[in-house]
């Protein structure tokens, strides 16, 4: 089974691109499936199902969806094998812009759109930097100049990736992308494989459910922003907060 991890900012066109690309593989008689990761809600699964794609979804709830993804990815691969899939795709929205679901030796795709602004490639970090293939969408609504500038910015962040333009609505470019998926490595397990980029240390009290604000309630991995406050200034209302 070939396995592809797809990441990208929310609404960049991941679902649209996956559906259009899988269509070509379906036409060639392949059995395709998707595991969709999100935080609280998604109805992408309905869209996939409507297009004849077998789908499972995982909602991370209180966890970072990428952390949740890594904790579950081996199970997903085993599910895909059990369903007899030829191609399994995972979709996850990089919400914290710090995590990246990409795994070594597994084809890694990042979807990013022309409308997101030229600062975005720099901002979204590992999910773009660690990708093998970068797909740029929504080229149909911006000018040629903006497409070229945006592609150049993407290239500056990830010089090695293969860069493709795909239109998520008409499917232009999706056949070309599907040929890269066909070449992906055969994956029987991801057990023991490594993430391309380590997940951030998320071990503060808020990770554990704290809701109150103030240094008294902050434990573990806490870092303060440097605002040049006068010494002795209490960084919050809690008594004795300043060090």
């Amino acid at each position: 089974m070939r396995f592809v991890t797809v990441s990208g900012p929310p609404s960049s066109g991941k679902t649209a691109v996956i559906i259009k690309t899988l269509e070509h593989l379906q036409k060639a008689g392949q059995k395709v499936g998707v595991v969709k990761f999100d935080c609280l809600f998604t109805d992408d699964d309905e869209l996939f199902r409507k297009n004849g794609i077998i789908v499972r979804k995982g909602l991370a709830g209180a966890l970072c969806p990428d952390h949740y993804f890594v904790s579950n990815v081996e199970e997903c691969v085993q599910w895909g094998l059990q369903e007899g899939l030829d191609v399994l795709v995972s979709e996850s929205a990089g919400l914290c812009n710090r995590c990246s679901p990409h795994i070594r030796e597994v084809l890694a795709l990042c979807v990013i759109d022309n409308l997101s602004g030229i600062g975005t490639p720099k901002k979204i970090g590992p999910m773009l930097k660690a990708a093998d293939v970068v797909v740029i969408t929504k080229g149909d609504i911006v000018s040629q100049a903006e497409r070229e500038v945006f592609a150049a910015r993407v290239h500056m962040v990830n010089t090695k990736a293969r860069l493709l333009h795909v239109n998520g609505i008409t499917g232009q470019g999706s056949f070309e992308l599907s040929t890269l998926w066909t070449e992906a490595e055969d994956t029987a397990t991801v057990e023991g494989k490594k993430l391309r980029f380590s997940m951030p240390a998320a071990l503060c009290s808020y990770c554990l459910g704290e809701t109150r604000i103030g240094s008294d309630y902050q434990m573990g991995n806490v870092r303060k922003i440097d605002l040049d406050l006068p010494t002795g200034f209490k960084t919050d209302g809690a008594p004795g907060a300043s060090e």
Partner: protein
Amino acid sequence: MSQNLESLTVETVFSRWPFAQQHLAEAGLADIADKPEATLSELLDAGQLEILGNFISVMEDFLGTKDEKVHEVTILGGRAKDGSDEPVRELTVSVGDVVCIVGPTGSGKSRLLADIEWVARGDTPTGRHVRVNGEVPGDKWRFSSEHKLVAQLSQNMNFVMDLSVEEFLNLHAESRQVGDPEEKIKRIWNWANELAGEPFALDTPVTSLSGGQSRALMIADTAVLSASPVVLIDEIENAGIDRQQALDILIREEKIVLMATHDPILALMGDKRVIIKSGAMQKVIEPSEKEKANLTELRAMDEKLMGLRHRLRMGERLDEI
């Protein structure tokens, strides 16, 4: 190299090889820059031409830009939707050509354009092959940000960046790392103003340009600054833009122009017309003398319609037309 050089104008040489200007200045030939329209053969003797030719060769090797200039793209026929051989076996489009692609929706126009963009090697559903300058092209045309074979201009495209015209063009020039960005920006701006008919300032925000101005700026910018040798146009709307001049600008900047259009005026402006049906190129025809003669009448009809549109806008009735 020197054989090609002598027929080129000074302007073309300087824009294609920005470093040539300094080289000539150092050789005591700075004043040829004053005659941008003249060809090199009028200004340089054989010895000077040869030295310049060698210098350009060496610089291109050094910069890694050698042979990147696309002169022609060839499409080798594949198969139609039913699997039969595509009737047109070979079509070559060269710099300066304007080629129209016509056929009903679903006939395979998009796939043909996609085959060109993807520089097909028999690995697309049509089985077509595409050659660049007569050679089988490498992967760089498929995946790099710098080498996209096809630039696109379409009616749905808008500027979305929050920048002035000048900032916007600067940004594009910078990302392309072109020589003499100021001159190029000036040229784009002048052309866009000519095309649009309603002038705009360099400090106008791109998002507040009118429809005609936006289209004009997109065309001039693509002509001068786009990395892609082929420009694909799907219709150029009539409103407020000189379409013949738009094509002339693209040709002057040595683009290969493809138009997916059913607008009779645009179609007759083309040098060639490719007819697509059932997923295959059926025929390539050239406009007949009769068709060309009709162009005058079509333009008159077009102007008449524009006039009526204008009167409607001004609140007039169209009782008399």
